[in-house]
């Protein structure tokens, strides 16, 4: 029998369920290793060599090296684990979250100060809110892409 997953039609959102967790096990465990200062140093010194110590697939390694968090999430990453990469890079949670929207750091920060992203139009895939697939990337990057 199919499992109940009512969250699959939420736009711009990947729910980290048991299936994602299984896909991302080694990617996320690699991230955990960055909680040790020695490992952070070794990773920074040679990212590829450090990643090759882990049983991750090639796509996961490329996604990490590209620091593309949306890509990391598609391959099974979870944001609380991926945050260890951002921490290693000296990035704040806001910088990491913003990076997934296509907005610049300033644009994202301004959106939050202005009250954040509205749920309107962003509850179900197929509406017209700013988190919907057809409106990516957001911010000036999106305007440039359309021009």
């Amino acid at each position, binding site marked *: 029998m199919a499992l109940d997953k009512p*969250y699959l039609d939420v736009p*711009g*959102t*990947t729910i980290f369920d048991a299936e994602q967790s299984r896909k991302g096990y080694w990617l996320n465990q690699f991230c955990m290793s960055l909680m040790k200062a020695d490992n952070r140093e070794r990773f920074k010194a040679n990212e590829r060599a450090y990643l090759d110590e882990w049983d991750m697939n090639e796509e996961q390694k490329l996604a990490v090296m590209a620091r593309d968090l949306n890509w990391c999430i598609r391959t099974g990453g979870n944001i609380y684990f991926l945050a260890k990469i951002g921490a290693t890079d000296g990035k704040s949670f806001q910088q*990491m*979250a913003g990076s997934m929207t296509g907005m610049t750091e300033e644009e994202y920060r301004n959106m*939050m100060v202005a*009250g954040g992203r509205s749920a309107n139009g962003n509850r179900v895939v197929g509406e017209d809110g700013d988190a919907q*697939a057809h409106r990516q990337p957001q911010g000036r990057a999106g305007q440039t892409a359309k021009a």
Partner: protein
Amino acid sequence: MAHISASVYTSHVPAIGAALDLGKTAEPYWQSVFKGYDFSKQWLKDNPPDVVFLVYNDHATAFSLDIIPTFAIGTAPQFQPADEGWGPRPVPMVQGHPELASHIAQSVIQQDFDLTIVNKMDVDHGLTVPLSLMCGQPKAWPCPVIPFAVNVVQYPVPSGRRCFELGRAIRKAINSFDADLNVQIWGTGGMSHQLQGPRAGLINKEFDNAFLDKLINDPEAAANIPHIDYVREAGSEGIELVMWLIARGAMDDVAKTAPGQARAPLNMRHRFYHVPASNTAVGHLILENPSH
């Protein structure tokens, strides 16, 4: 006999900890967050608990993907603030209360909630940021703390209803402890926020304020909110709000009573809401039991 005198609810945004630790509290951006806790710090000094039972979630810190407990109770004498990747927060060691914690574990498991018992774990911002918000920056935390970690990282997380019923079981457990201890229960996390994907930055003031109203006045209805409503309305990480229901379920006014027996309403001492702290809507409540 031990008893719960009050419950405290607060967000536990990591950037709040960073703002405190880096001395940014005077900046206008952070002033508008911290001013919501001025009352609370004084209230805590005026109403010092013997123990805080602190419900929070671990953010891939003590629990990796190797072991994912749904409900974990810390029974150790001490808990070290964790290095989450930025280095450990410069905050005091957390002192536990092993006797009360193991008593609660035994009682709650006998009430059919299968807790994981943890004798060794580091505690992350989910636990230390609420302590900082309520206590400021003391050399030592004012009382022992029992960490109670809830899985809200990997779906499915426990339902709001189950969390609420667990709160009821925790109340019974605390009330059956022989020593005369004044216990506060804190529920942390939320409110609306989403940290991932193109929908990152979602905030829903209407949902959050309706949730606060319900939590205070109609907690049974709050307990019935299904997961998908949190995800759609409050963002994928807004699901953390189920943890508030554990604290709310432990209050006297919702304890099961004999038919015809009425419970006195609780006292709301403080309510605060602010957007944003980093990516998140900050919510905060203090509710006291009437007998207090």
